C-alpha cells in the first residue's frame, strides 16, 4: 500500500521530532566509552608509545590496522550512493543517505588514526612545513583530504531539500535549518541546479574513492617487505574496502531500521538487492585473496613462504582461517540461498564480514612485521588496553555520529523517496520502452 505524502514526512522525521529515553541512555553510554578512549590516549601522550603492545620488530599495530579498517568502511558511501545513482538503480533511494553519513564519519575517525599512532604528534606541523610528497603517507593525506571534502559536499548537497523541509515544518533549532537550506524552495530552476551539482559530484567521487584505498595499500606495497611488496595490493584493498563498506552499511541499516521502525521504507527487497552486491564482493574478495596467496606459494621464495606458512599453519593460523571462513565461506553460502538470505542471515553475515575484514588487515600488518627477513629476536604482538580503548573510542564515535545525525537530519532521504513514488515508475517504464526492439523498415532485396 502506497503511503500518503504526509505520512512519509511524518515517518521519516519522527526520529528528529521525538526523543525517547533510549536516546539519552545510548548517548550517555557512548560518551562514557569516548571519555575512556580519551583517557587511554592521554596515557599514551604522557608516557609514550611504550604503553601500547608494539615493539621491535612489530612497530605498527592496532592503530595502523584500524586506520585501514575505518577508511575501508568509507567506501560504503561511494559505491552505493554514487555508482547506484549513476546507474539509476531505483532501489538505492532509502539507502543513499545512511551510506553517505557512514563515509563522512568513518573518514574522520580513520584519518585521525595515523596521528594517534605518531610518536611525536606535537610535531604534526612538520608534515605541512616540509613534508615529502614522495612518501606514500603524504599521498594518503592528500587523497583522504580530497575524499573527505568530496564526500562531505556529496552528503550535504542532496540533503538540501530535506533540510528545507525541516525548516518549513518549524523543527527546532530553526536557525540551523534556515542557514543550511540555502534558500531552497523547490523551484524548477533550483531543481536543475541541484541535479547538475549532484551529477558532477557523483562522477568525481568515484575515482577519488578508488584512489584513497589504492594509496593506503601503497603504504605497504611501496616497501620491499615480503608479504607487502605485491602489485595486487591496490585493487585488493579497493575490493576489500567496498566489501567491508557494504557489510557495515548493512549493520547500520538493519539496526536503524529496527530502532526507528523504518521497515516500510527499507524493505526486505532493498536488503536483498544490496545482498547481491555483497555476494559479488565476497566472490571478488575471495578471488583476489586466492590469487595473492597462490602466486606467493607457487613461487616458494623463502622470505615470502615464511610469512605464508606463518599464516597458514603458524601463529596466525586462527586469525587467517577465521578470516577466510567469515569473508569467503559464510557469506557465499548464506547469501546464495534464498532460504538463508533473510534479514537475520544478512545481519549475521555482515557482522562476520566486518570482523573478517578487520582480521584481514591484522593478517596483512602483523605477520610481515613479526617475520623480518633477517633473523631477529622474536617478540609477539599483543595490543594493550590503550590500543583497545582507542579502538572502542573509534567505534563509539561512529555510533555517536549516527545518533546525533539522526537527531537533526532524516536518515532516509525524504525528497528522494517522494520523487521515487511520483516519478520513478513512469521514468523506468519509459526507459524499458526504449530498450524494446523497434519495428524495422522492410529491407530492399538486392
Amino acid at each position: 500500500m502506497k503511503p500518503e505524502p504526509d505520512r512519509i514526512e511524518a515517518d521519516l522525521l519522527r526520529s528528529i521530532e521525538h526523543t525517547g529515553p533510549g536516546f539519552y541512555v545510548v548517548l550517555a553510554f557512548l560518551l562514557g566509552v569516548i571519555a575512556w578512549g580519551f583517557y587511554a590516549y592521554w596515557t599514551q601522550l604522557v608516557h609514550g608509545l611504550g604503553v601500547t603492545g608494539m615493539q621491535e620488530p612489530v612497530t605498527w599495530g592496532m592503530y595502523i590496522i584500524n586506520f585501514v579498517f575505518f577508511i575501508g568502511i568509507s567506501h560504503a558511501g561511494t559505491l552505493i550512493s554514487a555508482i547506484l545513482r549513476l546507474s539509476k538503480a531505483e532501489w538505492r533511494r532509502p539507502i543513499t543517505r545512511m551510506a553517505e553519513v557512514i563515509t563522512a564519519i568513518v573518514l574522520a575517525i580513520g584519518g585521525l588514526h595515523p596521528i594517534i599512532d605518531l610518536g611525536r604528534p606535537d610535531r604534526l606541523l612538520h608534515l605541512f612545513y616540509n613534508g615529502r610528497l614522495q612518501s606514500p603517507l603524504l599521498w594518503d593525506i592528500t587523497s583522504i583530504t580530497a575524499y573527505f571534502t568530496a564526500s562531505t559536499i556529496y552528503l550535504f548537497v542532496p540533503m538540501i531539500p530535506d533540510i528545507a523541509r525541516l525548516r518549513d515544518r518549524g523543527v527546532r533549532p530553526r536557525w540551523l535549518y534556515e542557514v543550511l537550506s540555502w534558500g531552497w524552495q523547490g523551484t524548477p530552476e533550483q531543481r536543475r541546479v541541484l541535479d547538475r551539482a549532484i551529477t558532477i559530484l557523483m562522477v568525481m567521487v568515484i575515482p577519488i574513492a578508488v584512489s584513497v584505498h589504492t594509496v593506503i595499500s601503497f603504504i605497504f606495497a611501496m616497501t620491499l617487505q615480503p608479504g607487502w611488496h605485491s602489485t595486487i595490493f591496490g585493487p585488493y584493498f579497493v575490493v576489500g574496502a567496498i566489501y567491508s563498506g557494504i557489510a557495515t552499511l548493512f549493520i547500520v541499516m538493519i539496526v536503524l531500521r529496527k530502532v526507528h521502525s523504518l521497515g516500510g521504507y527499507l524493505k526486505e527487497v532493498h536488503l536483498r538487492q544490496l545482498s547481491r552486491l555483497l555476494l559479488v564482493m565476497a566472490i571478488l574478495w575471495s578471488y583476489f585473496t586466492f590469487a595473492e596467496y597462490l602466486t606467493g606459494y607457487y613461487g616458494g621464495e623463502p622470505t615470502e613462504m615464511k610469512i605464508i606458512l606463518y599464516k597458514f599453519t603458524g601463529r596466525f593460523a586462527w586469525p587467517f582461517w577465521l578470516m577466510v571462513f567469515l569473508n569467503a565461506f559464510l557469506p557465499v553460502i548464506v547469501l546464495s540461498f534464498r532460504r538463508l538470505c533473510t534479514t537475520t542471515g544478512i545481519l549475521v553475515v555482515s557482522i562476520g564480514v566486518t570482523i573478517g575484514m578487520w582480521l584481514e588487515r591484522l593478517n596483512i600488518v602483523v605477520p610481515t612485521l613479526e617475520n623480518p627477513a633477517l633473523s631477529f629476536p622474536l617478540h609477539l604482538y599483543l595490543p594493550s588496553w590503550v590500543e583497545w580503548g582507542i579502538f572502542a573510542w573509534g567505534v563509539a564515535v561512529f555510533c555517536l555520529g549516527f545518533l546525533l545525525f539522526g537527531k537533526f537530519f532524516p536518515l532516509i532521504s525524504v525528497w528522494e523517496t517522494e520523487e521515487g513514488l511520483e516519478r520513478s515508475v513512469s521514468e523506468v517504464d519509459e526507459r524499458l520502452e526504449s530498450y524494446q526492439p523497434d519495428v524495422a523498415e522492410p529491407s530492399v532485396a538486392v
Partner: protein
Amino acid sequence: MPRWGMVIDLDRCTGCGSCAAACQAENNVPVVPKEEARKGRSMGWVRMVHEVEGVFPDAHVRSYPRICMHCDKAPCTYVCPVHATYREDDGLIAQIYPQCIGCRYCMAACPYTVKTFNWYAPQWPEDLRDACNPDVSLRPKGVVEKCTFCSHRRQIAKEQARAEGRPMTERDYQPACVEACPAEAMFFGDLDQPTSRVAQLSASPRAERLRDELGTEPKVSYLRTRSGHEA
C-alpha cells in the same frame, strides 16, 4: 666527495660484542629497564647476531654485527614523510631527531630491521648520565634512531682538518665500533678511493652484502669466512 663505507671480516670476528658496547657508550644509546627489554624494546644500534646452524656435532654459530647499512638506495629515505631521514652527499644516511614525528614508517620499510625507537623517554640514572658522550645529543621519547657511522666524529674530523688548513682524509674519521674491535675485524673508509683498504676489501671475491638482490646497495660488506661457512 668521499663515499663512506664499512667492511667487516667475519673470519676475524669473534662475536665478542665490543662494537655494540662501544657504540652504546659513544652514542648515548639508552639502556632500557628489564621489563621493557623482555618486551622487545631494547635499543641497540649495533646488534650482535648469533645464528646457530646445523645440529650437534656439526653445529656452528655464525656471529656478526648488524648495523645500519647506509644504503645508497635506502628504502627508509624514500618513505619518510618529513625529511627526517635522508642520504647525505657523502653517503651517510642521516637521522634527524628534532624533525622525526615518530611515524615509524622507516622502521617498517627497512629490509634489515636496523632502526630502533624510543618507546618511552630514555631514563638516565646519575652514573649513566655522567658517562654520556657530550658530542652526541640525548634523544626524547617518540623518535627513531639508528647507527649514524658516528657522524659527530666526522664533524669533528672535518672541523679539525679545516682548522689545520688541509682536506680531510679517511684516516681522520673512524666510527667507535671500528675503533673498539679487538680483533681488528672492521674497516671503515672511502669506498670511492681506489687506494683505500675498504674499497679494495669490498671488491674482494670474499665480500658480500646482505639482501643484495633487493637493490638497496648497502655500503656495509661482510667478508665470508675462509673455511667456507657463508656469512
